[in-house]
């Protein structure tokens, strides 16, 4: 199933973005504040939110989320124009949008699965639970819907502003969260660690 841009209600949270960037004090904050509106304009102009869910087994879903390829290209173009603050802000805004999509996608799936009396029991993440081979196999199921996207030999997705994971389904109601769990991630240097 494809969830296009119209399904997502994405509202950039300035405080969250600034907190991730750690630019909460002067003089750094003022410089980033000045680029907030231009960054929002570029975000809206470049992002094409899209979510896809594919049932790859009776009790397993593969979920893919992306903002499209334009945002990353725009960020790189800004860096080459030496507009680093705007580029950095747009980059982090994109990540925030992707995390918002992730939370909203969980809600969409939950409601749709309910009609089949199914519930989300566990989230399986790349590198932590899913090997590169598994990720490639999952990706090929949904690739026709996102021809601009791809996956490397080691299971890295592109465009960069994309994510993919599996959801294990259960016939019994579950109370566990199926959002990303930082405590199970192997990226110690992630800026967003313990915040998502």
């Amino acid at each position, binding site marked *: 199933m494809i969830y296009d841009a119209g399904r997502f209600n994405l509202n950039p949270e300035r405080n969250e973005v600034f907190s991730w960037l750690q630019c909460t004090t002067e003089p*750094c904050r003022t410089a*980033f504040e000045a680029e907030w509106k231009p960054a929002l304009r570029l975000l809206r102009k470049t992002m094409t939110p899209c979510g896809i869910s594919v049932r790859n087994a009776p009790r397993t879903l593969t979920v893919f989320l992306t903002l499209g390829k334009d945002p990353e290209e725009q960020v790189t173009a800004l860096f080459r124009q030496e507009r*680093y603050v705007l580029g950095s802000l747009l980059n982090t805004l994109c990540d925030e949008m992707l995390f918002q999509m992730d939370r909203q996608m969980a809600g969409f799936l939950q409601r749709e699965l309910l009609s089949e009396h199914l519930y989300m029991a566990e989230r399986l993440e790349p590198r932590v639970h899913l090997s590169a081979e598994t990720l490639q196999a999952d990706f090929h199921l949904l690739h026709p819907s996102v021809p601009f996207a791809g996956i490397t030999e080691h299971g*890295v997705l592109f465009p960069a502003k994309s994510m993919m994971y599996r959801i294990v389904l259960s016939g019994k109601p579950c109370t566990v969260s199926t959002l990303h769990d930082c405590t199970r991630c192997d990226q*110690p240097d992630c800026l967003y660690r313990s915040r998502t």
Partner: protein
Amino acid sequence: MITEKTETDRAEKREHLRDALLRGDRSAVELYCRQGMLVYLRQVRDELLEELTVQCLEGTVPFSQLTVTAQAACALAGNGTPVACCGSLVGNPCDTGRNFIWMLLRAWGIPVLDLGAEVPAAQFLNAVAEQGIRFVIVTAFSAEDAGAAGQLHRMALEMGIRDQFDLLICGARFDEELRKKLQLACADHRAAAAARWVGQRWKNK
């Protein structure tokens, strides 16, 4: 003879320049450049970048502050023949790390060539052999990209040009054994540390 007034003027100028760089005020930096203060500005820039980078690596100053300062410092960069090149290794399609490396090298005033994403080893080595690149900075997504880094190192040895450049890897952490095996110039995986390492070597060339 340096009078007391001259010393005061210098201290004031220094504070103004430092403040403009801290605020990311590129227009002010450009104005000082037009007033013929380029050499003095570059000295202030180098000192400030060194100070901010150390604080950033210690975690007392956010990377965002380096971003703000880099934006203003780039007004002093110039466009000389590239001495450094950056690119992501095959297996790392992401631009983010490369963008930050580009930004910081430019901030240090180092002419840099961007080779793009998923660059084959041969392309980095061509830049060394044909364009005289001295510093090769590659970005990796994870330690799994060690294979591509190893290929770059081996090919350089085979071509007999490994001693012509310093190799730095940013993004992913590599263990000590691998760092020694690949003869990495800088043991730190963070972009700020790599740029500082190159910046210091370049200034002292």
